[in-house]
């Protein structure tokens, strides 16, 4: 009984500290692919070019098999058993909307917010339009005032860059 008295607090303490180890990661999904058990590496960044946008993670992203109709990504840590499936050769690229696990509806909303000429892209034309209204305020520029602070300023241009699709 004495032993039980000593052990009970220890078990409770250990259960609190080890609880996070049983938490499972949420899968990333998009119409083009699913990433199982993602592990986001620390120091993730945002990379962008006229051709692509990497919204979140870098380095080792998954500890399982990520597959889609066009590819299979096999990776893992040392304890992961060697996958037996053969590597599929990509036949075409994933759809442009596939990215970072953001739901397509949200992606569409994001693009619409900064796509001033409604061509489906946030690009140089939209940059030229927002810069034209730079420094202005009032009702007529509400469409370009992306953070809603009443003025088209550097923050709005930065938000447009954040949503850049090229």
């Amino acid at each position, binding site marked *: 009984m004495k032993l039980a008295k000593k052990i*009970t607090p220890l078990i409770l*303490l250990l259960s609190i500290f080890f609880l996070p180890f049983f938490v499972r990661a949420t899968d990333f999904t998009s119409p083009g692919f699913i990433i199982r058990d993602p592990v986001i590496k620390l120091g993730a960044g945002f990379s962008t070019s006229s051709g692509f946008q990497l919204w979140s993670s870098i380095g080792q992203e998954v500890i399982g098999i990520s597959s889609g109709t066009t590819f299979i990504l096999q990776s893992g840590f040392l304890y992961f058993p060697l996958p037996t499936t053969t590597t599929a050769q990509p036949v075409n690229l994933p759809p442009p909307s596939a990215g970072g696990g953001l739901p397509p509806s949200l992606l569409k909303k994001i693009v619409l917010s900064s796509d001033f000429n409604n061509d489906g892209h946030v690009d140089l034309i939209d940059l030229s339009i927002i810069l034209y209204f730079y420094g202005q305020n009032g009702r007529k520029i509400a469409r370009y005032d992306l953070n809603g602070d009443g003025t088209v300023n550097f923050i709005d241009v930065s938000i447009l860059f954040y949503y850049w699709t090229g």
Partner: protein
Amino acid sequence: MKKLFYAIISLFLFSGLVSAAGPAIYFKTDVSNLAPSSEFELSIFLNSKEEVNVFNLEINYPPDTLKFLGGNNSGSIVDVWQKPPTVLLDGEVSLIGGTLKPFHGENGLIVKLKFQTLKTGEVFFTLTNGKIYLANGLGTVIKAPESFYSINVTSEAPVVTLSPILDSTPPMLNAEIVTTPIEAGKILVFNSEDKESGTDYSTMRFKRWFSWSDSQQIINPAPLPAHAWQLEIKTVNNAGLETNETLYLWEEILKKIGLLLLVLLGMILIFRVAPMGYNKYKRK
């Protein structure tokens, strides 16, 4: 029929004239003959009679003869860069940016590109893709005419190096945390500027708990690292002077304090209350 023919010809001629009078890009260097292992800057200028505010340029250079070292934006008319001068493919530099105030006039410096000569030969710089956007609120694009420039790299010429940039003023840095309008995420927005020597690069490091992360190079805007409560942003100019700014994420600080309090409370409960309950149970 003849009239229609002349009308079409006139239209072509007229459009040609418009294009010729439109914005143009040209190049310039301080030296035209230099030896291998030299360093030089290629200045890229914009001439425009119409008001313009955005450009997208692709410039080719021979990668076997030249090594791209980076850009220098001192004295530039450009206020916002979508990304710093970047090598897209080997031998192709991409420049995308804009001006907060519409630009019109001559000799508007866009950027100076730094190169190192690797071997002898004639070096050609070519503007392969030049799109200039009119500041008219519509984003009208005008194609800039192709532009060429050449220099000679010969072993007879002197070795030239870039003189160190003298600047005693550190760069200006303004940074803040902004909420994105759609997904209500937090991003870091920063504006760095140095009129004298130009900004070289910016970095960010952060604290999730007690220790600093490694510094990572960033461009505006930058996503915030998850669960970070303190950020330190640093901008370095081309003279090596730096400016730092520290930002705190109060939401995350409160969360961390709450979590620590919870753990503390849990430990108190475990070490104080649990034995009491056990004794009560034993007495029964």
